């Protein structure tokens, strides 16, 4: 019986992890849409196991940055070095295949499907049986489905959303949808997880939960995390390094404390009294 309380390994206190070598390196990325310059000559890197935050005022180009990383947008200039491979740009599917998963700012769940199905979609790249086998739902296909179902249930337990597993996601309140979206991304067992404002629209308590989930993922699986968030408390508390964007340009990069002290950042983003 698998549908019980969370497995122990999710709940234990993590040891402080080490951040490692550079896994993702973005070099001189520029991106524009017609006349709008969304990103101008931005370079930064992400190390293995770290939590890397991107902050900046609205419209600074944070989401665009994530879109570049996982291949939704193709930058006009610059290159991406991922796990030592140099790429001019990513392609969505290749990015997913090579272990980049993400969540979206405007929730992009599959509205007509249940929570469980949404999370199962996250595992699609790990499924190998062809559609004929699936149609017969027999032998390997069936075993595969059940094996992946077990994984999905683990994630459901981990995120504490057991009660809603069969609910169509369209009916869920905003905050839970965000959680489901995280679940879907986790289901892919990614190497890098890109999170676009995972805590928007949550109250403190829920944010605390969410932080916990993110930290645990980071600790337990060693997943590298790139995070966009407007809640400075969260960013300062959980991230290892922070990039600050403003008007498509990078105006700061460093540890939370360094960034907090950076006058440009204060002017552009944090405002006084922070």
């Amino acid at each position: 019986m698998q549908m019980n309380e969370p497995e122990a390994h999710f709940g234990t206190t993590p040891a402080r992890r080490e951040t490692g070598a550079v896994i993702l390196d973005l070099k001189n990325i520029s991106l524009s849409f017609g006349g709008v310059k969304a990103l101008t000559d931005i370079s930064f890197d992400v190390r293995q196991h770290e939590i890397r935050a991107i902050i900046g005022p609205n419209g600074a180009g944070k989401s665009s940055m994530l879109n570049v990383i996982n291949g939704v947008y193709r930058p006009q200039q610059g290159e991406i070095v991922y796990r030592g491979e140099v790429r001019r740009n990513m392609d969505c599917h290749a990015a997913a295949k090579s272990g980049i998963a993400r969540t979206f700012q405007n929730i992009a769940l599959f509205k007509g499907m249940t929570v469980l199905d949404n999370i199962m979609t996250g595992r699609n790249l790990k499924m190998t049986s062809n559609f004929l086998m699936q149609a017969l739902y027999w032998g390997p296909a069936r075993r595969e489905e059940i094996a992946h179902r077990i994984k999905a249930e683990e994630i459901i337990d981990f995120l504490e959303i057991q009660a809603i597993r069969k609910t169509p996601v369209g009916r869920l309140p905003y905050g839970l949808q965000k959680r489901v979206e995280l679940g879907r991304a986790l289901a892919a067992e990614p190497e890098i997880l890109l999170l676009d404002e995972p805590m928007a629209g949550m109250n403190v308590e829920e944010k605390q939960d969410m932080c916990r989930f993110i930290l645990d993922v980071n600790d337990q699986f060693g997943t590298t995390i790139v995070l966009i968030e407007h809640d400075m408390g969260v960013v300062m508390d959980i991230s290892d390094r922070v990039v600050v964007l403003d008007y498509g340009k990078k105006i700061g990069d460093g540890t939370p404390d360094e960034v907090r002290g950076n006058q440009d950042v204060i002017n552009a983003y944090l405002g006084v009294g922070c």
Partner: protein
Amino acid sequence: MAAPYLSVNNVEVIYDHVILVLKGVSLQVPQGKIVALLGANGAGKSTTLKTISTLLRGERGDVTKGEVQFKGERIDQLTPNELVRRGLSQVMEGRHCFGHLTIEENLLTGAYTRNASRSELKASLEKVYHYFPRLRERRGSQAGYTSGGEQQMCAIGRALMARPSMILLDEPSMGIAPQIVEEIFGIVKDLNSKENVSFLLAEQNTSIALRYADFGYILENGRVVMEGAAADLSCNEDVKEFYLGVSGAGRKSFRDMKFYRRRKRWLA
């Protein structure tokens, strides 16, 4: 306390004929006050606001009990258009900008119910642009292509264009950079004190909401479980712990939250 400007009396809401979401919610907004509606995800805040603005019908929700009054008249049978005419505007959760319209056109649709002259419109636009300079820069882009925060500003600006006397704000701070959040609440306060606009705001960012609001309601599982002056609420220990994230020992780092806490509920 002044006579209620807006009052919701014991409403019960069912979605899709089977999902009971509001189980008898009552609340009042006095004229010229800011009232905060707080509560966890799924507590029914958005539903309450949609009930007031009668937008519920489009989502297959039914008000099965209770009534809503605005300026002393029942409004639950009116069309949203009529409500806007009477001065009640809503900013919906999740932005809902018109993707194909430019930011400026979006703002102009907000003034649909006003038979305003060109110059009046221009003045109103200027005011919104003054509040949100970012929108001025992006005025010509289609809203569908703008960033999340820009859309949120656009949605708020659009509601302001109707010059309402009462605004229902659903999570205005969502996805907005911190200093703009402060600005938005500044605008709320500003409109409230200068133009006597009343507000009912559903907000997750409890600390800032209680800072600006006069009065607060806490909603849980479709019921009002606590109400009181904002100042009282922010001193309440439970509220402090669950909604403000501060316990006796002061604010804790998000990194140090060790265990998943089972939420304490006022009503199980």
